């Protein structure tokens, strides 16, 4: 097929294509050719392609209707393989060499459609059809849905991971201009000249908006030349950022807007070596919405046959792309504006069969101009039906009454292959609606205008209902100066004179939302309102007869506006038809609320670079690379990567953990404990403050000593725990759990800053500064002695819960003698730059004792053997110290009521039968209970059983030779010796005995080994 519809140059216009650069592409497997500057839509039309898809519900053949974001029918799958993109509008896809396009609707083929032949599917699907037919039985819905989707076609997502990359930019500006049509361009220029930082974004590939297809002159220049000069001027400003191919898709709180910039889509699917799309997250002081307007279709019988198009789209294809999508045009209009399409068509050398104008006495200047060209104007008429199969063949035309509500004359037939329609214009109020501004109906423009601003924004030009070019230029310039002034730039005066524009003075349009047919609506051939989802006028009326009244309900029941075009064309007609059916006005009926996104936004751009290894920060300790070199398996603890266990070659996790556990208790092990949170606390009131935060007292903690403490929230529940050391006068170091570090710091700051600002104390996180190597086991002292000569390590000199400063392997270190294993333990802290040095020195010193690096799993087993809790594992935000059998840590005689103390006396905190921490010993020594297993007292009771608690920690203990578990059980502290049962999902029930939570070394003697 040749480009049969491609026009040669037309006098007085300048297209935006380069006819000398051919571009090859395929459509549904067929080789076609377009030219540089084409969109996929203009190239298809140039090639005479009529049917581009099938409708969603009735599978009717559909052709291209529009030329931009409003297009409902030409929905394409672009590319193939991993980089394929579904649901793009052909009107917005720039043509590139080798482009592969396929209709998303129309399985198995657009020209031979199974569903359409079988017929039943289309005829029997009234609104609410899905709900009515497929709701029951509910379990079959998935089956139905699969079939419906396949048949209707919504494109296919790639199954491979996306090969393209996407990124995000955080932008800040004084003035964001949305839309680079006439109003937006002059607004940007005024704001820029005033000195404001300006961003101008436009969804099209080049700036100019409607002017790119205009035959008007501005200041004596062709519109496109005027645009080129102005864009060059804008690009000359340092304070202006121009973003073509960039859709402002959402307007959020506090003037935050999202822009999706398509950077390489126009170069070809696999051309993207940089980021394919970029998300601009813009915080703008002021926003100017100059988003334009959508021409409103006219709703008449079979208005969906390919060859029925928007009038402005026909002009755009002729003037901008040099394509005449047909030969014989019938123009159907309610206004003067669309007459230009007849002039453009005539100028392109094609036949205008007639202009059908619903107004009984059109008398504008342009009407006279058209008549001067010898074009017939049928005033007071309407196209009541289009006829044809895959292409319009005839328009049925009849005289209408003055309101356009009834047919008052005989039906005439006009032979044609193109019906261009214009029912007036609808401002693109979408972004204004996103802010919560309520759209206001205006009879004078027969449309909704943007509502009262809720944010720092204003709408100008067509999206504010100003359609004349001169008005757009004046409004835009004023808005640009005003916005700049409000953002702190300039005094609001205009820097540039207003441009001289030649334009026709327009006469009032007629409101016509549904063109009457010889038959009543329910009997007439379908009069489509929403083409993409096959919502017809009769469907809306049926919904009203079935009792729906609210526009939001009708929208959901009929699916009007739910397509990928979001009802940009059909919504106003639909609401007007609804209002009429309800016997009320359009303002009474109201409009649905537009929400982000304005057009579909790719998930890739939303994710940006926060994917793969950059999805979330991986925090490493100073010894991370040593662990990795030793083949450690890592566990995520918050954002930290912690060694989980260190398997030898051929070892399973179970074997490795058993080996590590035994090594610690038999000789010595080494753990990277650097991830523990550490907070430096200084100030004269430090001890008082710490004492208020922990359940026990620190007022008498001496220099060189440590104390274990539990922190509660004000509700009395355990929130964090750790050791706190006195480092000097008014100077303390607090350890927190690994995951709790940031939360504890914020918690301390909260109380100091908002409740007790009179307490003089400062908190500083030192988590990253210190690296901690923990050596533990009966030989720990011997290892330490080999690398540390300046600390007296004897048991009675460096006691349990003491800390000392000294030198370890040549590095100044701070050593804490505390223990999370029950064994003799030294936690050796050095500044992190020396972390790996100290670690390797300890490994070397421990070699003769078989020092064994161990990970978090062994740490968990060893502490569970000792019954030490882990906050967040054995507690869940509903556990008091008493529940954990830790009354000993609660200071009863503290002068100040520490945080949470009062709550420990609440009736709920002291009631019997609270869940309490116990040990569980399975009857079968080798069975390890699953963590989270529910505990019941009677295994034979009927389901649902009465659940009495749950397992919080569970391991196999190689040291003890049997499994161990910690659990919380109702009244558990008085149930020692009782047998409980854990029914599992797999049908097994495991019996266990309630025992003390301290399984190993109950007297705590091992840490005092000599």
């Amino acid at each position: 097929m040749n480009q049969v519809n491609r026009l040669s140059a037309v006098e007085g216009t300048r297209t935006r294509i380069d006819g000398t650069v051919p571009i090859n592409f395929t459509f549904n497997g067929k080789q076609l050719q377009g030219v540089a500057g084409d969109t996929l839509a203009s190239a298809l039309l140039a090639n005479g392609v009529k049917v581009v898809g099938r409708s969603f519900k009735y599978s009717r053949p559909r052709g291209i209707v529009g030329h931009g974001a409003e297009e409902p029918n030409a929905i394409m799958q672009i590319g193939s393989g991993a980089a394929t993109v579904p649901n793009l509008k052909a009107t917005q896809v720039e043509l590139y060499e080798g482009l592969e396009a396929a209709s998303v609707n129309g399985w198995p083929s657009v020209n031979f459609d199974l569903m359409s032949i079988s017929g039943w599917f289309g005829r029997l699907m009234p609104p609410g059809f899905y709900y009515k037919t497929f709701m029951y039985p509910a379990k079959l819905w998935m089956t139905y849905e699969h079939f419906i989707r396949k048949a209707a076609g919504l494109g296919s997502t790639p199954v491979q991971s996306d090969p393209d990359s996407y990124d995000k930019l955080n932008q800040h500006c004084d003035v964001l201009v949305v839309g680079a049509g006439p109003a937006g361009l002059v607004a940007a220029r005024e704001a820029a000249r005033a000195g404001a930082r300006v961003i101008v974004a436009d969804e099209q590939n080049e700036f100019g908006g409607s002017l790119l297809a205009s035959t008007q002159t501005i200041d004596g220049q062709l519109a496109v030349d005027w645009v080129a000069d102005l864009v060059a001027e804008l690009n000359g400003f340092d304070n202006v950022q121009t973003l073509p191919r960039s859709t402002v898709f959402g307007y959020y709180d506090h003037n935050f807007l999202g822009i999706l910039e398509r950077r390489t889509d126009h170069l070809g699917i696999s051309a993207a070596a940089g980021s394919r799309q970029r998300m601009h997250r813009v915080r703008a002081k002021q926003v100017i919405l100059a988003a334009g307007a959508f021409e409103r279709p006219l709703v008449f019988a079979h208005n969906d046959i390919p060859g029925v198009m928007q009038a402005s789209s026909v002009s755009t294809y002729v003037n901008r792309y040099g394509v005449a999508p047909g030969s014989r045009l019938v123009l159907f209009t309610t206004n003067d504006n669309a007459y230009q399409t007849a002039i453009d068509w005539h100028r392109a050398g094609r036949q205008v069969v007639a202009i059908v104008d619903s107004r009984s006495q059109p008398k504008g200047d342009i009407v006279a101009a058209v008549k001067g060209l010898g074009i017939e104007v049928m005033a007071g008429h309407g196209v009541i039906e289009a006829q044809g199969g895959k292409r319009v063949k005839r328009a049925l035309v009849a005289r209408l009454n003055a309101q356009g509500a009834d047919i008052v004359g005989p039906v005439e037939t006009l032979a044609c292959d193109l019906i261009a329609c214009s029912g007036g214009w609808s401002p693109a109020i979408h972004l204004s609606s996103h802010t919560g501004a309520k759209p206001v109906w205006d009879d004078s423009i027969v449309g909704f205008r943007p509502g009262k601003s809720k944010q720092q924004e204003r709408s100008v030009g067509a999206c504010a209902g100003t359609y004349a070019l001169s008005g757009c230029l004046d409004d835009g310039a004023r808005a640009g100066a005003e916005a700049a002034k409000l953002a702190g730039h300039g005094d609001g005066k205009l820097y540039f004179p207003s441009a001289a524009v030649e334009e026709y003075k327009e006469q009032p349009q007629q409101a016509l939302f549904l063109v009457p047919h010889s038959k009543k609506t329910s009997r007439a051939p379908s009069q489509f309102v929403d083409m993409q989802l096959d919502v017809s006028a009769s469907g809306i009326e049926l919904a009203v007869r079935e009792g729906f009244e609210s526009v939001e309900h009708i929208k959901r029941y009929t699916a009007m506006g739910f397509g990928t075009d979001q009802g940009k064309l059909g919504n106003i007609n639909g609401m007007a038809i609804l209002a009429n059916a309800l016997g009320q006005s359009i303002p009474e009926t109201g409009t649905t609320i537009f929400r982000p996104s304005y057009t579909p936004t790719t998930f890739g751009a939303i994710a940006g670079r926060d994917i793969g290894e950059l999805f979330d920060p991986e925090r490493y300790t100073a010894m991370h690379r040593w662990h990795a070199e030793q083949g450690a398996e890592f566990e995520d603890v918050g954002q930290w990567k912690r060694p989980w266990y260190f398997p030898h070659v051929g070892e399973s996790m179970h074997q490795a953990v058993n080996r590590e556990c035994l090594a610690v208790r038999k000789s010595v092990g080494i753990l990277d404990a650097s991830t523990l949170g550490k907070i430096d606390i200084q100030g004269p009131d430090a001890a008082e403050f710490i004492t208020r935060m922990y359940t026990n007292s620190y007022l008498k903690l001496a220099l060189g000593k440590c104390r274990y403490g539990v922190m509660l929230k004000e509700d009395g529940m355990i929130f964090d725990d750790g050791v706190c050391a006195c480092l000097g006068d008014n100077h303390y170091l607090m350890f927190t759990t690994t995951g709790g570090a940031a939360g504890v710091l914020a918690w301390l700051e909260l109380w100091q800053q908002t409740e007790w600002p009179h307490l003089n104390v400062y908190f500083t996180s030192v988590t990253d500064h210190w690296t901690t190597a923990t050596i533990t086991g009966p030989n720990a002292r011997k290892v330490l002695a080999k690398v540390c000569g300046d600390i007296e390590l004897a048991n009675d000199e460096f006691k349990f819960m003491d800390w000392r400063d000294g030198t370890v392997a040549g590095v100044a270190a701070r050593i804490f003698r505390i223990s999370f294993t029950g064994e003799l333990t030294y936690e050796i802290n050095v500044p992190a730059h020396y972390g790996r040095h100290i670690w390797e020195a300890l490994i070397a010193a421990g070699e003769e004792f078989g020092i064994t690096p161990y990970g978090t799993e062994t740490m968990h087993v060893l502490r569970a053997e000792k019954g030490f809790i882990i906050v967040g594992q054995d507690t869940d935000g509903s556990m008091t110290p008493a529940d954990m059998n830790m009354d000993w840590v609660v200071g009863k005689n503290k002068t100040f009521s520490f945080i949470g103390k009062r709550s420990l006396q609440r009736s709920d905190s002291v009631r019997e039968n609270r869940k309490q921490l116990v040990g569980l010993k399975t009857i079968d020594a080798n069975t390890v209970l699953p963590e989270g297993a529910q505990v019941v007292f009677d295994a034979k009771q009927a389901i649902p059983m009465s659940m009495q608690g749950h397992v919080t920690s569970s391991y196999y203990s190689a040291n003890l030779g049997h499994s161990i578990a910690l659990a919380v059980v109702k009244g558990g502290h008085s149930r020692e010796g009782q047998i409980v049962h854990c029914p599992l999902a797999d049908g097994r029930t495991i019996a266990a005995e309630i025992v003390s939570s301290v399984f190993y070394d109950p007297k705590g003697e091992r840490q005092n080994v000599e």
Partner: protein
Amino acid sequence: MSNKLSSIKVESPLQYFHRRTSHQSQVAAVNGTELFNGDAEFALVVKEAPICTHLNLRGDGRDDGFSAGVSEVLGIPLPTEPGHYHCNHEHSLYWLGPDEWMLVSQAGALTLEAALRQRLTGHISIVDLSGGQTLINMRGSNTAVQTMLKKSSVYDFAGWPSAQTDKGCCVQTTFAKATAVVSNKSDGSFDLIIRRSFADYIARWLLDAGQEFGCRIEG
């Protein structure tokens, strides 16, 4: 002891990333992204400063005794205006909050802390963070540096006036999904103070984000 000391291994947070690079993509090259200082490959250079002293300093900035004491010891005025730092050849003092500053210095941590503690009285806090942070400098073509900042942080750096040799702007803010203290320098480059445990993540982020310009990390 001396021969022992010489064998002490010291590792900076970004040590394993020195000399790592990410190369400019073809698309960026086609688009003609300006390169830096005539560098054929890299429009962006990230350099980790040698290990030095980082002290967190707390005190009452409205107390004349405190600010005079700090200024006397360091030879630079205490920045009390939010979002500013002062520096000389030895010290850089960054405003972090109304009673909090970050001091990055070539002086030894112990000596410097002792000098400050001797001169300052009242309720203060000085905390050594030298092991927990590192300072990296990001320099390159203006486009590359500004784009990197826009990619990485929600803060509006373009709103800053140019830095002078003895003072400039600083801010503690988000950097990718971590945090950083970012400051501008009189040569047009930017300094970042980042936490050690996030250094690997940030280095990977910078190499990835800088790919469109060509990015090199130096030590």
